[in-house]
């Protein structure tokens, strides 16, 4: 199923693939300007559903530091009833017509994504309009939602793979809205009041911040008319402003441990500064990362640490690990879950392989493979109407030019190892890793001590801090 969601994961940027794939005959269209609604639409005559997305250009980055999670609660409260329909009636009407509607909050946006059986599109739009313009914001629903979100936050403690990410964020973004996920933490969510929700809604749901996107089997004019009607009812406002938060990167590899008892694997999360979605070197760095660790099965990390050494089931690297590429620099990360007895070895081997990559780049075979694969597989990003609309939407939100297939192939084709090494030197750190490990602290301490006996003191890793899971979600 293809829902219209922001295409933030695709690091190659917004570009059509090489001309081996032809695209749908009906191009994505753009309507309006700042005096009218911004709408991205593609007619998909064969579709049995209508997919709609409404994006509000505010997100976790705008939340007050002591009330992180506010945008997330606003998004969810929009789905919990209207002035005319209580939550039960709203959800029942929605689901009975064969529709779904969800709110997804990122650092930059609150996105409402919906899908409905095509015959009920009009009814769905009417309900969406009511939800966006006349949300109920009832005390009872707010109480229940807050309780649900707090339960979700506490439940993260069950997930070893997520805890490593939380620890890294806390260390590298301390004191900024990025120190916690957009869902917030126990202490920040507890502070949010219904008045905060209403105020955030009043200040953020205005014309300049709202964008519409849809893929449906109907003429464009039908959809634009509905979207325009909704848009006109919002108040005037101001365009969102950008704010860039820079992560704090350690000078040398720094190990922190999140203690979970009796783990049979270590959940590893290496992090250093990443790049923004607009970074001019994103094509080069993505191509390099593909063969270093980004692509399972063929990457250097995978082939060595899993294929050759058999230390782990999974290992990979990514520029999009904290919610996808965005206006924020985010993190570049390497994740793995080696068996406990191989965890220390995996840490040191990964660091060794990273140093080699950051200094030497890729071999010519690795570079060719990455370039061929990226160019040949890119058309999958555009295989459906919903995906094409998503890319248009992201292009607008993040001011990224849309490349033609020829331009994209040319850009990838022009990447050389010399350019990659220069980009790595400029953007990445050879030693500046924060390594968050979720594991039994006593076992890993002993394992590290044993493993490092032969390593010179100045190169040894020590555990610089031990977190409990409670500390990370509080």
């Amino acid at each position, binding site marked *: 199923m293809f*829902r219209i969601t922001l295409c933030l994961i695709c690091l190659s940027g917004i570009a059509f693939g090489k001309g081996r794939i032809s695209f749908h005959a009906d191009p994505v269209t753009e309507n309006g300007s700042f005096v009218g609604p911004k709408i991205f639409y593609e007619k998909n005559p064969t579709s049995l*559903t209508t997919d709609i997305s409404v994006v509000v250009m505010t997100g976790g980055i705008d939340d007050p530091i002591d009330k992180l999670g506010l945008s997330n609660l606003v998004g969810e409260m929009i789905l919990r009833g209207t002035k005319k329909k209580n939550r039960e009636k709203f959800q029942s009407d929605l689901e009975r017509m064969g529709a779904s509607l969800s709110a997804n909050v990122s650092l930059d946006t609150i996105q409402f994504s919906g899908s409905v059986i095509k015959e009920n599109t009009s009814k769905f739009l009417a309900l969406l309009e009511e939800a966006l313009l006349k949300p109920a914001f009832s005390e009872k629903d707010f109480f229940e939602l807050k309780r649900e979100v707090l339960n979700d936050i506490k439940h993260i403690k069950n997930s070893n793979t997520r805890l490593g990410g939380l620890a890294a964020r806390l260390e590298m973004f301390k004191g900024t809205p990025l120190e916690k996920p957009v869902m917030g933490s126990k202490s920040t969510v507890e502070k949010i009041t219904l008045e905060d929700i209403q105020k955030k809604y009043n200040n953020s749901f205005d014309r300049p911040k709202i964008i519409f996107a849809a893929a449906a089997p109907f003429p464009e004019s039908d*959809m634009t008319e509905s979207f325009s009607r909704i848009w006109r009812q919002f108040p005037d406002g101001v365009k969102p402003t950008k704010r860039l938060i820079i992560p704090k990167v350690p000078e040398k590899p720094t190990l922190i441990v999140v203690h979970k008892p009796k783990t049979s694997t270590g959940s590893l999360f290496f992090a250093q500064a990443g790049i923004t979605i607009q970074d001019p070197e994103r094509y080069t760095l993505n191509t390099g990362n593909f063969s270093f660790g980004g692509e399972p099965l063929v990457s250097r990390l995978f082939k060595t640490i899993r294929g050759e050494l058999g230390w782990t089931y*999974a290992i990979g690297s990514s520029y999009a690990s904290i919610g996808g590429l965005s206006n924020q620099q985010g993190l570049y990360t390497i994740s793995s879950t080696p068996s406990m007895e191989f965890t220390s070895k995996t840490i040191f081997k990964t660091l060794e392989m990273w140093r080699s990559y950051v200094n030497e780049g890729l071999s010519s075979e690795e570079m060719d493979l990455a370039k061929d694969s990226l160019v040949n597989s890119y*058309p999958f990003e555009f295989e*459906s109407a919903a995906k094409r609309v998503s890319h248009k939407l992201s292009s607008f939100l993040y001011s990224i030019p849309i490349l033609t297939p020829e331009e994209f192939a040319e850009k990838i084709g022009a990447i050389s190892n010399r350019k990659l090494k220069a980009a790595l030197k400029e953007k990445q750190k050879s030693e500046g890793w924060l390594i968050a490990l979720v594991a039994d602290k006593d076992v890993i301490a002993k394992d590290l001590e044993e493993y490092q006996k032969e390593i010179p003191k100045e190169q040894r890793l020590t555990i610089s801090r031990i977190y409990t899971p409670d500390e990370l979600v509080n």
Partner: protein
Amino acid sequence: MKKINLIGVTALFIFSYSVFSADYEKIADKKLFNGEIISEFKLTNGLKVIFLPRHEAKVLTFQTWFDIGSLNEKLDAKLKKTGLAHLFEHMMFRGTDKYPDGKFDEITSRIGSDKQNATTYFYRTNYYESIPSNQFKKLLELESDRMANLKLDSNILEKEKGAVVGELRRALDNPGRLAWDELNRTVYEVAPFRYTVLGTEEEIKGFTLEEAQYFYKTFYAPNNAAIIVVGDTNEAELMNLVVKFYGEMKPQEVPRYVMPEEPIQKKERKVEKTHAQATSDILLVGYRIPAVSSPDIVPISLLSTHLSTGMESRLRKALVDTGIAVGASCGVSNVPDYLEFSVSLAENHKADEALVIIDREIEKLKTQLIKKDQLERALNQELLSLYNGIEDNSSVASMLGDYLMISGNYMRGFEIIEQYKKVNPIDLKNMAKKYLKKEYRSVVVVKPQPKKSSRS
């Protein structure tokens, strides 16, 4: 836009016929509710081919399904243990004489493959990828080569065991996974569903090259496999290529096993475990239900949707909205056949609380008819799911392959949804009374380990 309130799946027309060529037989063309035609073929060596053409984009999904999973190996006289089917799935990526270790992945990646991977389950193993359609010939060459000419190397087997042990340990660190393994062990006293697909660490480490060779030769035969293709090619091209690359393969004698008869459950079974990684309770409840081919599966499936799908589902309202759980669901499991209730409790709430609520909801189903609008909600949520899923080549290919493996009828998923329209509230009540009996269920609770006296 049109305002049409009448919702329903249009009629399903089926044309069955046989067209013979020297190398294969066309079995049937089957028309889907959306007008698309699915074609079925069979090569003379027994290989099944299911094809759904689509030309919106010049891409296609290719899947290979083998009628072999952990059930077979446990019942096989020469193996009698589990884990090899899964370990072997890993080995299928580790090279042939023509394409040595690493080459398969390298070439498929280079030609632009998307979502390439493989999975193993109790009753089947599948391999899948999507590719630009102009690379179809190359892909078939690679796929058929590893199906016929895999080179099994003991050094590589030992390395791959490390990765698989890592996979097993990662699973064991997940309390939810432990709960599910326990549920299968509790529901089944005899049938090999009670043994995990991944096997034990001891079993994985103990597999020999000879066992792997036996497994490959015995089960990876064309008459034990099916190919599913959805996307941008045509019948002539497809069958020419399939015959060219797969036509020479020889059928094998594939052992068929009789599943040990599971004794009829006469009383409720309960198991409680602790897990060092868990920070809150997990509750799983399994009620034995009939196989997917049974007509009862239709109302049972709709019953599970009523209970589980959407914000208005009964379980969400009773367990999540009340703050007792962070997640609650109910779903039909085919092979093993049971209706599974799954609840992740919120901290400070206990599995017993959730079980009382599930019992209360089940009692309501047995004593009250669900309202017409609730039935309409369940039906339309199923349709939305179908309509969204069918647009994705990979999703529809997986649906066809999975139903082929569990029932021999790849159209069964569509048939079930088509038959939903005939279900009424009385059917749902009858199903609840017939199958959701305490004496037919197994209950598994996984709890956090009790905290020792404070030690940071």
